């Protein structure tokens, strides 16, 4: 008798971030990989997660407020001058 180690699609999709970030324990990792190998739906969502992360990396960082930038530069100059 083998132990039932199956895991459902609904459970797998909750683990995809941890899977992509390499944070699953070996047992869970093996279950997720076995499931993915036989599940087109979960594989699709996994690939879309990967793509979501990649596309998010293309966002640009907002600008710092000009007044604050100037104030901080002054603070830095004070500090450099031994203030």
């Amino acid at each position, binding site marked *: 008798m083998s132990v039932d180690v199956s895991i459902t699609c609904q459970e797998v999709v909750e683990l995809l971030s941890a899977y992509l970030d390499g944070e699953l324990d070996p047992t869970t990792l093996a279950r997720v990989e076995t499931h993915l190998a036989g599940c087109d*739906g979960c594989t699709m*969502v996994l690939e879309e997660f990967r793509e979501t992360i990649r*596309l998010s990396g293309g966002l640009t960082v907002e600008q710092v407020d000009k007044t604050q930038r100037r104030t901080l530069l002054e603070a830095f100059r004070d500090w450099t001058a031994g203030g």
Partner: protein
Amino acid sequence: MSDPRKPPDDLALVERLRAGDETAFMVLVDELGPSMHRVARMYVSSDTVAAEVVQDAWVGILKGLDGFEGRSSLRTWIFRILVNTAKTRGQRESRTVPFSSLAGDDLDQPTFDPGSFGAPGEPNAGAWSTLPFDWRGMPEERAEGTETLHVIGGAIAMLPPMQAEVIRLRDVLGWTSEEVCNALDLTETNQRVLLHRARTKVRGALEEHFRSVSGA
């Protein structure tokens, strides 16, 4: 996207700051400033107060720079000072911010619509009953256009503040999970849960967007 900075580079950067290198300082201010402001804003009552917190934090950071030993990354260390400054200021404002209002109050709920899966007790319990729209085949110029970035930015802006900040630091700025946990004072588990919820919502927004532009 910025590269994860290694402690040795951090020590070199600290040296440049000590030597009064204004360019190095402003690069740091520009890189971290927007996140610092948003994180400060989580703990205090207004944007004006948040700007003061960021200002105070930088003064504290410069004063304490000699104490930076490179045990954590410089940006993590900077955020620790920022978060402490912001929390102290929030307390002085008698402002108590429950974790749930920052993190979202749905953390114990499934991230995917349970209606997409077979109901408990059914033969297909937990298996896909309705598959999400498949947008993997989007042409690159469509997928990587400014419209897509607009959708992602819009979806992140709708998230509870802590979820938004975790996904920004991890996926937009490329920080490690360890750095984010330390910087935002989160447990590993909380960080993972927040990130997963955030990514699921952004993926969902992209799905909706690509479905509508494809006419499906």
